[in-house]
């Protein structure tokens, strides 16, 4: 009972704070409308958060334009896009057929390339080679020990321990999971049939860690474990990652170059920006140096900005176009800072053609 009373008393300053915060942000917004470029609002993937927050501060410094990005998750971003409550959404997965129908007139703009690594915890082993079907079998439970003949066959030069493989995966829905399962579904018919690909799937086994840091922690805490995490986390934490055999038969270490190479190999197959992108994926890409576990992240924006109703003004329409153009051109230089790979030249051209389609009040939008 004492504790209860204390909490209530403690809550008062918090409540005051909560009252004060919206007031502050409101007064912050009021000033923006006067400037040449109005504040834009975006929502979506958490994976893209480091890049987009870096972008928005650089973009503001260079052009004075402001962008608020809420990393509420791809699912939430897509819902906000369908509801027309944000100027743009970001997602690791392109819109599904059904989502594309509900958000008619959506333009899809790939803006960065993320890379997923297979991190492991094997004492005294610093080079591990894996193939897609072996990874799939480990995650399905068909291969249970490190010294399985199929893993040893790929790694003739090292002695693998006779230990049980501890599998770690994401427990939260995430684009990282989407890329990983998308790859496995391509290379393993068994995986495609039993599990499939999505931002969250029915994992047959393993420990679920919350977020990249959760999976990284599970791998570090458990000797003889294997899991998938984003490249930036593996780099920052100095975790060893496996070489994965690509379609050309080469073992490729996860890297930014490997991601860009994979995207470049897929350029020919990309649809135009206003077409549906639901089956676009360049995991398991062809090409000698392509890393097989890379994927685009996408901006979704309406071709006809009038769909946003009261969210949009002529100034904002210009801001949307200016921001998108900046991200796919000058902005690309910042990819390396957050361990993302930059878009290949051809994809940038494709994006600029897509952005030219954007209209407001029936007119193409040309920023001054």
């Amino acid at each position, binding site marked *: *009972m*004492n*504790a209860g009373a*204390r909490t209530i008393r403690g809550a008062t300053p918090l409540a005051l704070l909560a009252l004060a915060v919206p007031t502050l942000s409101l007064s912050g917004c009021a000033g923006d409308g006067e400037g040449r470029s109005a504040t834009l609002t975006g929502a979506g993937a*958490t994976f893209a958060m480091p890049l987009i927050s870096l972008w928005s501060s650089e973009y503001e410094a260079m052009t004075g334009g402001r962008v608020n990005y809420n990393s*509420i*998750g*791809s*699912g*939430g971003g*897509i*819902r906000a896009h369908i509801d027309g409550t944000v100027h743009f959404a970001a997602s690791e*997965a392109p819109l*599904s057929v059904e*989502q594309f129908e509900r958000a008619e007139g959506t333009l899809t703009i790939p803006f960065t390339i993320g890379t997923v690594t297979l991190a492991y915890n094997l004492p005294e082993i610093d080079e591990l080679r894996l193939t897609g079907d072996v990874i799939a079998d480990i995650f399905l439970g068909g291969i249970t020990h490190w010294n399985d003949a199929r893993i040893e066959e790929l790694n003739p030069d090292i002695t693998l321990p006779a230990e049980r493989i*501890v599998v770690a995966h994401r*427990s*939260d*829905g*995430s*684009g990282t999971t989407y890329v990983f399962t998308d790859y496995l579904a391509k290379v393993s018919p068994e995986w495609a049939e039993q*599990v*499939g*690909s*999505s*931002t*969250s*799937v*029915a*994992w047959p*086994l*393993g*420990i*679920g*860690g*919350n977020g990249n840091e*959760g999976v990284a*922690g*599970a791998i570090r*805490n*458990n000797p003889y*474990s294997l899991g998938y995490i984003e490249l930036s986390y593996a780099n920052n934490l100095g975790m060893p990652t496996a070489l994965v055999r690509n379609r050309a038969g080469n073992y490729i270490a996860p890297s930014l170059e490997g991601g860009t190479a994979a995207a470049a190999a897929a350029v020919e197959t990309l649809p135009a920006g206003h077409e549906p992108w639901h089956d676009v994926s360049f995991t398991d890409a062809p090409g000698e140096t392509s890393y097989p576990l890379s994927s685009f992240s996408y901006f979704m924006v309406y071709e006809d900005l009038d769909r946003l109703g009261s969210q949009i003004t002529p100034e904002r329409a210009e801001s949307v176009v200016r921001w998108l153009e900046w991200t796919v051109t000058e902005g690309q230089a910042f990819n390396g800072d957050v361990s993302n790979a930059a878009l290949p030249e051809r994809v940038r051209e494709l994006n600029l053609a897509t952005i030219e389609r954007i209209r407001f009040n029936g007119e193409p939008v040309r920023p001054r």
Partner: protein
Amino acid sequence: MSLTRKERTGTRAAAKPSDEGAGPSEVVGSRERSSRRRRSLRSPPGGLLRRRWFRYVTAGAAVLVVGMAAIIAFQLWTGSRLAWEEWGLAFITRTEWDPVQGEFGALPFIVGTLLTSGMALLIALPVSLGIAILLTEYAPRALRDPLIFVVELLAAVPSVVFGLWGIFVLAPLVQRHVMPWVAATPLGLLPFFGEPGPGYTLFTASLILSIMIIPIIASLSREVLMAVPRDQKEGALALGATRWEATRHVVLAYGRAGIFSAAVLGLGRALGETMATTMTIGNSLGLNFDFFSPGNSMTAIIANELREAAAEIHVSSLVAIGLILFLMSFILNTVGRLLILQTHKGVG
């Protein structure tokens, strides 16, 4: 009883300023003020209005809370309708959870929540009772206050901190020492304890939860034990009972219902705990009764998947689990409160 007494003094304290509130803001001569006060004792003109206004405000606040609970329940219902329409009440007993195929069921999560909360209670209850008995019967004054302080401090630690501690300290400890030890005792023969694996398990989550609910159960039980009339205890001692016998047969017997309700409230806290659970439970899917392997809970699955859930039926199923959890905690808390009322009636 202590609660009602506190409540009573609480209202008296709150009422006092409004009684006197008519005067002090204005500067008036002391004689005039005293005559005014005498007058206001007979018929308080401003005081009455103010008191009525005060009553409306408090009533409004109460209605607001009840209304909010109703709105939440309603929203949970509308948000989850799709899942109920698809599977009906069978949603509760379905065991599939496959976002790719759009197949969802709540049973593994309900089981995980009940197992971890139940185990947490099993561990926390004896410890909390020990603390409560020590604090009321045995501890010298000098020890009592610091101990109460520490126990209540434990309640103030944010759950994410418990979760971090669980990941970095408890999980490796459980993996290396606790699970092998339990597996070696006769307990290991029970079907609930399988082959020890990695440290993120139902058992680790239960341990974290037990630590989190100990302060609640301990401080509530302490209040219950303190409410045991002195004469009863002294009577038992006078009859030749040892201190332990008096505690066991009089104090504990007297406070039984109160302790039970403290346990129920602690259980309610464990049911709803999210952050620490999802960080340590292992988040596996599928029905699992083995404490030594990863599991999942209702709170964990919602926290994990809601953010990236894009399909309507996926979102709806998660909200449906939220509704089940809401009803479970609602019922549990009601039972707990009713039992507390019962004890107060009995004691008072």
